[in-house]
């Protein structure tokens, strides 16, 4: 299960809760094991796992996390990096302030390193939609970080 740490990182961002993230990763890995035969030849097992995770998360009737208000700051810092710095906290906060669909494409496309095509398969949306969401997400994140830099002396 070499993907488990990466899945956990993504799950913590998705759920905003440490224990919920642990449960989500467990459920995802079990579903992947149970349905391994459904994985089509030639498709990415890694992308498939992320797809299962997102389907499981939203299939549980969970609402899209608007703001991770329930997660203490130190947890969010821990989520992102081993050595939290000001930049990490700022980025983390700016990312959390984005709409869920923007946050998701940035996490998948930039942080997890999936291609636009893979992200489109994970989210079951056309690749053009992924591209436009990524562009808007990058723009919004930059604006939020610029605003933050203006406030912090």
């Amino acid at each position, binding site marked *: 299960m070499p993907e488990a740490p990466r899945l956990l990182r993504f799950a913590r961002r998705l759920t905003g809760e440490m224990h919920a993230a642990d449960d989500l990763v467990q459920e995802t890995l079990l579903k992947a094991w149970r349905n391994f035969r459904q994985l089509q030849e030639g498709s990415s097992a890694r992308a498939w796992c992320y797809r299962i995770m997102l389907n499981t998360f939203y299939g549980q009737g969970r609402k899209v996390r608007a703001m991770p208000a329930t997660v203490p700051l130190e947890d969010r810092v821990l989520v992102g990096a081993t050595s939290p710095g000001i930049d990490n906290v700022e*980025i983390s906060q700016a990312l959390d302030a984005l709409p869920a669909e923007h946050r998701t494409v940035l996490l998948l496309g930039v942080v997890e390193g999936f291609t636009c095509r893979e992200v489109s398969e994970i989210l079951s949306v056309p690749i053009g939609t992924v591209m436009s969401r990524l562009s808007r997400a990058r723009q919004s994140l930059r604006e939020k970080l610029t605003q933050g830099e203006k406030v912090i002396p």
Partner: protein
Amino acid sequence: MNCREIEELAPLYLSGELDEDRKVQFHTHLAECRSCAQQTEQQSAMDERLRKALCAGLPYAGEIERSVRGRIVRERSRRWMLVAAAALLIAAVMGYRMLRPERLYADAALDHRQEVVEHQPRRWRTDPAEIEKLAERYELADLTALAPAGYRLEHAKMCGIDGQPALHLVYTNGVQEFSVFVRPGGGMEPLSVHSVGSEHLARFRTARHEAVIVTNGSSGECLQFARFAAAAL
């Protein structure tokens, strides 16, 4: 490529998905357009900043992996237990059918008593051609060969014994009547003799058939008839 196309294709450029031709066109435009070059540079720098901030370390997932492995082991053993339980059930049902043919004897004895001894009305086939057709279904070629010399086939019909269809043949020598029940089901089982009430029965299996002989005569007569039929089948 114009500025709008650059803006549209930037995500594919940054994820390394542009083919060689379009990458060359993209670079050519960036070299000529300061605004697009700056925009792309900023996006790339922000991606790097995001990765640096969120990918600096991976969380420890050892406990989760251990827990998942445990659940997989439990699920696997549960699946095997289900398979084993199903196999046992099938074996038990087959064993019951093979080892406890009481119902078969009871049904055959009752049919013989009601239909042959008491002559309760039934739709018997007496026309040899019709009987031959029935026999063909059970891969029985020569029905006269089933009975010893001096016996003739009186009539026949389809019936159900032990929940399965069978061919009921009645032979007589003018004094004694014998019911012969034949159904498909091989397995090579030697001749055995039984009795239900005043009826004597003999049962055997050949490579392709299972047969039960019933008579109100003696058990010796029953055995003699059955030996002859077993040799013919």
